[in-house]
């Protein structure tokens, strides 16, 4: 992954920019997009609940890595959308999708030893697409770029769209 800050800032920037075009994207829905950007990295739950332990406990294979594929990411987005009443569901689904897809999109550019990323389209296919290898998950500059982009969007939002944003602040 790029580290979480870059993903969350990228989702913040995208959602804030979208709010200039779509009135319903209030800061609350920007937050939903930011949360969506975290979904693929739920596989990090392995640090707290090791898959091997579950494997032993349940007697079946288990790998949290599925979180970092479109299939499981989409299921998590769906669960998230189902936690809100129907009147908010389409908006929440759309913003969770935005965040989740932006995460996968950014991760397609990670440097890897093999030159290929991961099974992003699983379970449709196990194919690991080639990556142009632009940055490492541990690099600092992507976060700097993301902070700049997010700050720019925040400034533009405040300067030109402040009135509309007021109800939430």
């Amino acid at each position, binding site marked *: 992954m790029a580290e979480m800050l870059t993903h969350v800032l990228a989702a913040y920037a995208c959602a804030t920019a979208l709010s200039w075009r779509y009135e319903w994207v209030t800061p609350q829905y920007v937050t939903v997009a930011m949360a969506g950007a975290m979904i693929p990295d739920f596989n990090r739950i392995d640090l707290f609940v090791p*898959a091997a332990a579950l494997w032993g406990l349940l007697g079946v294979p288990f790998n949290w890595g599925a979180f970092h594929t479109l299939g499981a990411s989409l299921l998590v987005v769906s669960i998230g959308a189902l936690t809100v009443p129907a009147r*908010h569901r389409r908006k929440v689904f759309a913003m969770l999708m935005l965040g989740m897809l932006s995460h996968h999109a950014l991760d397609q550019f990670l440097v890897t*030893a093999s030159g290929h990323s991961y099974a992003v389209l699983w379970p449709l296919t196990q194919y690991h697409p080639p990556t142009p290898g632009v940055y490492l998950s541990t690099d600092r500059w992507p976060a700097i770029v993301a902070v700049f982009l997010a700050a720019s969007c925040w400034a533009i939002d405040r300067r030109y769209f402040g009135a509309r944003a007021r109800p939430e602040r």
Partner: protein
Amino acid sequence: MLESPLARAVAIALCLCALIGLFVWFGALEPAPDHHRYAGGDEVVADADRYVGQPVELSGHVVATDPVRIEVDSDYESTELVVRDAPAVEDGQYLSVYGTLTDAETVEAEGTVARESWEFTYMYAVSAIAALWVLARAVRQWRFDPTRGIVPRDEPLTLDGASSGGETDG
């Protein structure tokens, strides 16, 4: 649209079952080199002999430099591998390797990525900050209503706890 709490609960339960199914299925997947899904640290630590002659993609901490040896961890076990054609690395660095497992203890590297351990600390720390930021925004802007689920707040939650609650209509 699923309106009733029961319909939503059933739908969530179905999604959770499908999700668990995916974790199990993913856990059962075998390497598929033609899809660029190579055997990794978990497979090699468990049964290196099975993957001799095949491409592998794994990583570990550098524990020796002449020849370069890395310690590859899976959840409960670890193994040391010699890395041929490795870049200049130092003890303690983290090396990711793509190459061929020439024997049960040696990888011939074709692609490598070396990183310092502190860089991972940075990554985790910055990620934790991001997660806390999103959590703070979520708690301020949304709330849980036992009858309706997660709903937006009318007014953001402030530090002194003053909040007019959430939606009161429909």
